[in-house]
């Protein structure tokens, strides 16, 4: 188990692992989202008080849950990157930030659209909404900080520090509805009490659980793909990138040009690899 874990941390084996896993996760996520959205929008009954407006929870709740989850994930990856100086964890921080920012923005926008018919206002300055907005700014700070540095590793570790300090905000977002008087309602599904005495009808609950798990699967698929990009961008001078990522198209091209049987025998290919070993910079390909 540990050796498997250690091997996974090396960029080439992670790249291959992610390549195999990401399509399955993406398919699973889209399937769950499709079924969940159909169930939520067409099968679940309208709420007796909110009417059809409640259906926005099938987007809003998963987006909000992921906005918090992704930030915690970023902070954990940041701690790993700072303590063990693991390259993959550095990439994980940087790759997660834009996805988390999108989910936060989605949660804010869907919340506003729901708030207008239900509360009568798009926005109120209460604890939950304000702290979620601060979370969005924290994400934007991480994205901006990452782009301010020219060296990718320094940038990623600076982002890791920022993520670690900013994680203070996550419990504030989560508990804001309990600590302060808020217009935002409390949690409906995430408590032991709710299992014994459900606060939501099962006809409304199952689509929510499907879109929730579907969103998580979708996030992990996108995250893995972004991680692959990040890893390849950093290791672009390494041989394994040449072998593993660029081999197939190059082999096809060289076969067409020279009519040789394999990429190993192609002289142009060999000279390219040789140049790579000497660390010569390469154009964007």
């Amino acid at each position: 188990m540990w050796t498997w874990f250690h091997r996974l941390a090396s960029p080439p084996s992670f790249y291959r692992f992610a390549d195999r896993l990401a399509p399955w996760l993406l398919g699973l996520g889209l399937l769950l989202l499709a079924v969940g959205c159909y169930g939520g929008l067409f099968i679940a009954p309208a709420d007796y008080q909110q009417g059809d407006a409640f259906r926005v929870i099938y987007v809003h709740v998963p987006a909000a849950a992921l906005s918090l989850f992704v930030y915690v994930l970023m902070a954990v990856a940041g701690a790993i990157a700072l303590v063990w100086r693991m390259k993959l964890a550095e990439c994980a921080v940087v790759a997660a930030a834009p996805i988390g920012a999108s989910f936060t923005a989605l949660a804010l926008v869907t919340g506003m659209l729901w708030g207008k018919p239900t509360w009568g206002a798009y926005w109120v300055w209460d604890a939950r909404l304000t702290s979620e907005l601060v979370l969005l700014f924290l994400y934007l700070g991480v994205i901006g900080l990452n782009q301010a540095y020219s060296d990718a590793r320094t940038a990623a570790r600076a982002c890791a520090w920022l993520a670690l300090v900013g994680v203070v905000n996550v419990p504030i977002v989560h508990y804001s509805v309990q600590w302060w008087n808020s217009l935002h309602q409390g949690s409906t599904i995430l408590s032991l009490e709710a299992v014994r005495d459900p606060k939501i009808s099962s006809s409304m609950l199952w689509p929510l659980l499907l879109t929730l798990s579907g969103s998580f699967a979708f996030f992990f698929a996108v995250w893995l793909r972004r991680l692959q990009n990040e890893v390849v961008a950093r290791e672009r001078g390494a041989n394994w990138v040449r072998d593993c990522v660029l081999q197939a198209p190059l082999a096809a091209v060289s076969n067409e040009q020279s009519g040789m049987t394999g990429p190993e025998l192609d002289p142009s290919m060999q000279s390219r690899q040789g140049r790579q070993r000497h660390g010569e910079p390469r154009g964007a390909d």
Partner: protein
Amino acid sequence: MNAMLDAAWAVFVRELRLALRRPAEATQPLVFYCVLALLFPLGLAAQDVGLRAFAPAIVWVSALLAALLGIERLFRADVDDGTLEQWLLADVPFPMLVGAKLAAQWLLIAAPLIVAAPLIALALNLQPQAIGVLLLGLLFGTPVLVFSGGFAAALTVGAPRAGLLIPILVLPMMCPALIFGAGAVRAAQVGLSVEGPLYFLAAMMVLSLTLLPWAAAGALRNALE
């Protein structure tokens, strides 16, 4: 232990001495604070009753922006002349020296703001009974502002294109201080209990004083490598 305190004290005194050599530059945050806070009444009609309601927010937002002024340059000179590398090599823990520098910055930037705040508050028609709460809030809140500003400056010290990035990084971290600081003054204005928000501010101050020097030191170390 004594050597550690001596080193921290030396850093503290050095900061003050450097600032006092350029007195005009050292007073800039204070002047900026007064000008900024006194611009708001100019945007309102004369004798507008809204001014009193907005006074807590104006005083606090002005303090926040004044604390941001010049924060980008906080570590730059020390990086350029190699001071920070010497601190890294020293026997004394690096976070302690960073903390001493930030404490000196608080004395230079924030303490004058607190002294000037009653005058600003009176100019903004704030009720006199709320001024004590305002000062106590600023006393607890300004270390949060200065230390989180120092952390953001440490994060961006190696980045040539930092520019507007520091306010973006640091303003979300300063939001809680603004909310509770201005909230305490508003509560005092209407005669409600002010203890809750003041306790929150004090807790944030303790967290900032104890944890942010470590975070800032880590970020500086990362930028210097």
